[in-house]
């Protein structure tokens, strides 16, 4: 599979942007600068980027509580996201939503989502719109291994098949639904088979390998876009942080995190592949790293300086209009 070098450099830039965004957010939470509940995507970057590389702005994604990476991969304004996490009125959601509700509708980002498996049914609706409009668009829902045990997920998968809509269910298995391992929470041994039993194909990838995710997601998205109905992608890759920032992670085995960071790192894997194939040279990747570091630093500087919301804004945006004379 040959991938254009521009696609490769964009993919690397986005994965690096997600990594630096998340690591900086973690640091700013520790500094007391970012309030609320925050769930970091570090380690899983290749999933979001490998999928979104096949999407354009009018395809949609819907995300999860662990949503920063999906939003960045789909093209969300990084500075606007950082401002949102800091609670600024200049944030992407005017400080109303924060980490769990980052959205950028114009970019086809139907929002991070604080409810496990809240997204898949909504994504079916977006896919249904694409089918009715016959516009060739696809709707991707990202959800985790925890989401596959919610009734809403089952209902969405079945209805996508029934309605033959271009919905792509990306299930990111990071092995833990919050603090519980998938080996406990999913009752069957073969989740791929269980999912395919709904009546659509599922393509499996190593979530630490951008190229594997890119290939699997390409098959699933091509299937949906061609009008063959829904498809699934399973990407397996652990998260480097806890369920939320501050999680003591009692569920980790000895050496588990070290192994993840050492041996299952999408950025290292990407660079190793480039060193083999010479598709992008090290200097190019180093330059991207430097650009990204500067962009994230600037985003934090801007977020700290950005306007704070005022009390009068609490009741704005509840409706487009409401009541007499609105």
């Amino acid at each position, binding site marked *: 599979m040959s991938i254009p070098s521009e696609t490769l450099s964009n993919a690397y830039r986005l994965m690096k942007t997600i990594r630096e965004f998340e690591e900086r957010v973690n640091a700013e939470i520790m500094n007391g600068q970012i*309030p*609320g*509940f925050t769930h970091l995507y570090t380690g899983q970057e290749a999933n979001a980027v490998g999928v979104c590389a096949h999407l354009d702005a009018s395809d949609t994604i819907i995300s999860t509580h662990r949503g920063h990476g999906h939003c960045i991969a789909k093209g969300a304004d990084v500075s606007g996201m950082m401002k*949102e996490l800091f*609670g*600024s*009125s200049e944030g992407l*959601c005017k*400080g*109303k*939503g*924060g980490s*769990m*509700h980052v959205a950028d509708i114009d970019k086809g980002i139907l929002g991070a*989502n*604080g*409810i*496990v*498996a809240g997204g898949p049914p909504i994504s079916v609706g977006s896919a249904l719109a694409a089918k009715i409009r016959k516009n060739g668009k696809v709707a991707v829902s990202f959800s985790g291994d*925890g*989401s596959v*045990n*919610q*009734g*809403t997920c089952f209902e969405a998968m079945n209805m996508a098949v029934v309605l033959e809509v271009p919905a792509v269910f990306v299930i990111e298995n990071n092995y*833990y*639904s*919050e*603090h*519980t*391992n*998938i*080996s*406990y*929470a*999913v009752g069957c041994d073969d989740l791929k088979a269980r999912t395919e039993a709904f009546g659509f194909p599922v393509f499996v990838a190593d979530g630490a390998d951008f190229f594997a995710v890119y290939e699997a997601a390409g098959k699933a998205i091509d299937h949906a876009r061609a009008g063959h109905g829904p498809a699934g992608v399973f990407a397996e890759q652990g998260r480097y942080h806890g369920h939320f920032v501050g999680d*003591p*992670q*009692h*569920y*980790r*085995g*000895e050496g*588990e995190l070290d192994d993840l960071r050492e041996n299952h790192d999408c950025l290292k894997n990407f660079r190793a592949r480039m060193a083999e194939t010479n598709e992008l040279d090290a200097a190019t990747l180093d330059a991207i790293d430097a650009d990204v570091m500067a962009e994230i630093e600037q985003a934090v500087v801007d977020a700290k300086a950005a306007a*704070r*919301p*005022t*009390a009068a*804004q*609490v*009741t704005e945006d*509840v409706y487009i209009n409401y009541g007499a004379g609105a």
Partner: protein
Amino acid sequence: MSQKTMRDAINEALHQAMEQDESVFVIGEDVAGCNGSAGDVGAVGGVFGVTTGIYHRWPDRCIDTPISESAIVGAAAGAALVGMRPVAEIMFADFIGVCMDQIVNQMAKFRYMFGGKSRCPAVIRFSAGGGFSAAGQHSQAMYQVMTSFPGLKVVVPSNAYDAKGLLLTAIADDDPVLFFEPKILYQETCEVPDDPYTIPFGEANFVREGDDVTVVAFGQMVPKAAAAIDELAEEGISCDLIDPRTTSPLDEGAILESVAATGRLVVVDEAPPRCGLTADIAALAADKAFASLKGPIKQVCAPHSPTPFSPELEAAYLPDGNKIKAAIKATMG
């Protein structure tokens, strides 16, 4: 007797209920924690640590589930129908959105629909309410919504002492009980007896006693209202502060008796105003104590808006001492 946090008081009540009755069990997401992992199974005890230690004593009666709120509530309801006393945990009250059918169409109505021939002694515990910058899907009170469903008993403790006694009552009760724990209060402490004790449902607590104004407050608004009332006492204004503790059943008598004496009423809750508890209590007084009223009834609550994320917005959103004091003064003209 010793100082305990509300978290520890609830935890103690759960332990004592488990000790007393083998039909009591705990079920929910990560109530043990780490199941299936290479780590320390049982180390989590719920995302707020309320069920800490239960798995280690009763591994067979501390049941982790997948993330499946409908199945959690349904399983609790079904086990209760056949004689168990489950205490299910739904991590955030907002997730009622996921499992609403099992609560309001199933467990709430079994007894009535079955002609009084069934019992469903299930307790569902929720963390509830704002104050964490947790935004629109992790900050809602929800108890005001659930209070409107006949068949459910609804408990909202405002301190560690009440939380322990009310939870023991809830577990022993033969009807389904929804138990809403204001999560901002988990770390708050007060004197809590070590031995088990119960607090009856439908019996309000007079947190302050005074002559000028009746203040009724719920959950995390009770300590805020108490502080506001103490400040007004220095200005010579004295208030009854009533914490109903259970919104269903509601101690109407205590509220009406107080309003009859003071002639003035302020109702405080953190939820938005429409079809909520402040309107409910205001209507109660307008209906049954109208002749006693000397001034307008005032409601202090959140605006008709979802809970915002940004700390400045949430501070403006939630009722605070200044709003409560202003409302008390407004009833006095």
